């Protein structure tokens, strides 16, 4: 028998890394651009935050098309870090994206540790609120080099930490045998938060052309298909580190987000959801609110990590 609780408007605010988010739903890097295109469909100010498309020191053209393929309840992408470079971004995009009344997270990638340090230094002098270290992109050759072993994670995180004047999020790759070890390495090296998962390396084949669908052959899998894997990794990670965990992988609804939050995520990101529907992040926020309200829970903070194991 359910007891009917009084309906309340729950508090969706969270504070992590010393930053205030109006709600725990952040657009995941690479799926929301720099916000421009989406602002025609949804007020980005409704979101908790935006993780921008990965930035590199120099402009990058990315991979040859086709860059996207559909798989059962998932998508494979091999965009490969196409971006206009940090300078262009600072000159032409930052001012626009800062107009949106939300937390701006710069996602950065590079070929070498000194690349990462260089970008971090530049961004530290700007108005972006936090930096997300993308050491986990499966779509560029060097992408996972730094991110796949605890030693690699430790090294790059601590080096960036030294020069980074912003809250530092380390984004982990799921293409590893033991995610918790990598997370702990990031924590030890001074990360302020962990985000996961990036995409899982996958492949799709066109049986008529007898070639991989993606021109890059392999790509990164995201979307609901990966949700059970992501959820398990978020749970493993949140059980091992004290810093906040930002969970993602296949979140398409408020209920999905709640699963991640119960598993230990302080905030969530939604990526593929934006590609499916440019306003879906808002539905996710409303869904979280409805769940809390139905259960009579006052604040989303109350349920982070509330999962009871069997």
């Amino acid at each position, binding site marked *: 028998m359910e007891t009917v609780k009084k309906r309340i408007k729950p508090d969706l605010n969270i504070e992590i890394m010393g930053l205030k988010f109006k709600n725990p739903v952040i657009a995941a890097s690479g799926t929301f651009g720099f916000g421009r295109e989406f602002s025609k469909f949804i007020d980005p100010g409704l979101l908790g935050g935006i993780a921008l498309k990965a930035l590199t020191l120099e402009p990058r053209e990315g991979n040859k098309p086709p*860059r996207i393929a*559909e798989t059962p309840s998932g998508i494979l*992408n091999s965009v490969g870090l196409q971006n206009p470079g940090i300078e262009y971004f600072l000159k032409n995009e930052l001012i626009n994206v800062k107009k949106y009344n939300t937390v701006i997270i710069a996602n950065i990638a590079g070929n070498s540790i000194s690349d990462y340090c260089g970008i971090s230094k530049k961004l530290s002098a700007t108005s972006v609120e936090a930096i997300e270290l993308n050491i986990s992109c499966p779509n560029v050759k060097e992408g996972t080099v730094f991110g796949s072993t605890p030693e690699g994670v430790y090294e790059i995180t601590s080096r960036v930490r030294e020069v980074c004047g912003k809250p530092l999020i380390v984004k982990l790759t799921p293409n590893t045998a033991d995610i918790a070890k990598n997370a702990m390495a990031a924590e030890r090296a001074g990360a302020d938060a962990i985000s996961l998962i990036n995409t899982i390396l996958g492949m799709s084949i066109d049986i008529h052309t007898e070639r991989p669908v993606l021109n890059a052959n392999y790509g990164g899998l995201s979307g609901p298909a990966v949700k059970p894997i992501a959820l398990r990794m978020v749970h493993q990670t949140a059980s091992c580190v004290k810093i906040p965990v930002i969970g993602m992988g296949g979140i398409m609804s408020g209920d999905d987000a709640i699963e991640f939050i119960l598993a230990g995520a302080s905030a969530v990101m939604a990526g593929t959801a934006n590609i499916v529907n440019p306003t879906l992040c808002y539905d996710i926020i409303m869904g979280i609110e409805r769940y809390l309200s139905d259960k009579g829970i006052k604040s989303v903070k109350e349920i982070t990590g509330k999962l009871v194991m069997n």
Partner: protein
Amino acid sequence: MTAKLLYEEISSIERLSERIYMMRIKSEHISKSSKPGQFVNIRCCEGNELLLRRPISICGTDIQKGTFDITFMVKGKGTQYLSQRKPGETLDIIGPCGNAFELSENYKNVLVAGGGIGIFPLLYLADMIRHSNKCSLIGFKSSSEIVMLDRFKTCSNKVGVCTDDGSAGEKAFVTELLEKELNGKIKWDIIYACGPYEMMKKVHMLSAEHGIKCQVSLEQRMGCGIGACLACACKIKCRGSKGWTYKHVCKDGPVFYSSEVIWE
């Protein structure tokens, strides 16, 4: 003008040939604001098994009635789903997307060249060009796939039809019909083309040889359809050391001048 996320009602669906369907959809916004060459991006599943929207060209509008048409060939699961929809059901659509063909009153003599599913946006185009001499050249695999021929005849001054197997019209490729027209008497002002990549490449080469402007509508696998995810890259010429950059079919296209495109 701007693309919107819409939930629109299907007003009719008709099977034109074994695998080709025409669907009429009610939409104030799209009927009013769309232009030939633009497309809509349609969710093709309930639930989340098929995540990517399918881009389908707009192939006509009726501003009075507030409807627009799409015509599509059943290829895989997404178009299969579309083909099974019934009037009264709603579709989740983003549109109108992308950039239209460039029309001008200065183009007195206009060539329209389409192959396969490429003819659908061109019908809309031919319909909208009012004051020019229009010649439409359309190619199909075989007679069983011929659709919309009458409508092309209605809105064109001349229509050339060919099939790959000669089962109807000439046994030829569209580009062969095109070559004949280019070698004919009329001085054409522009070619609009849409169809398979190899066909458009050939059309481009012919246009370049004859020094005639040419616009093509490119295809690429898409994610968001609104210019954000950067999935739908195409190589377009630009200044700078490399001489090209990746632009995006959904936002910078699908229509490009064929001379801008790096054909590979």
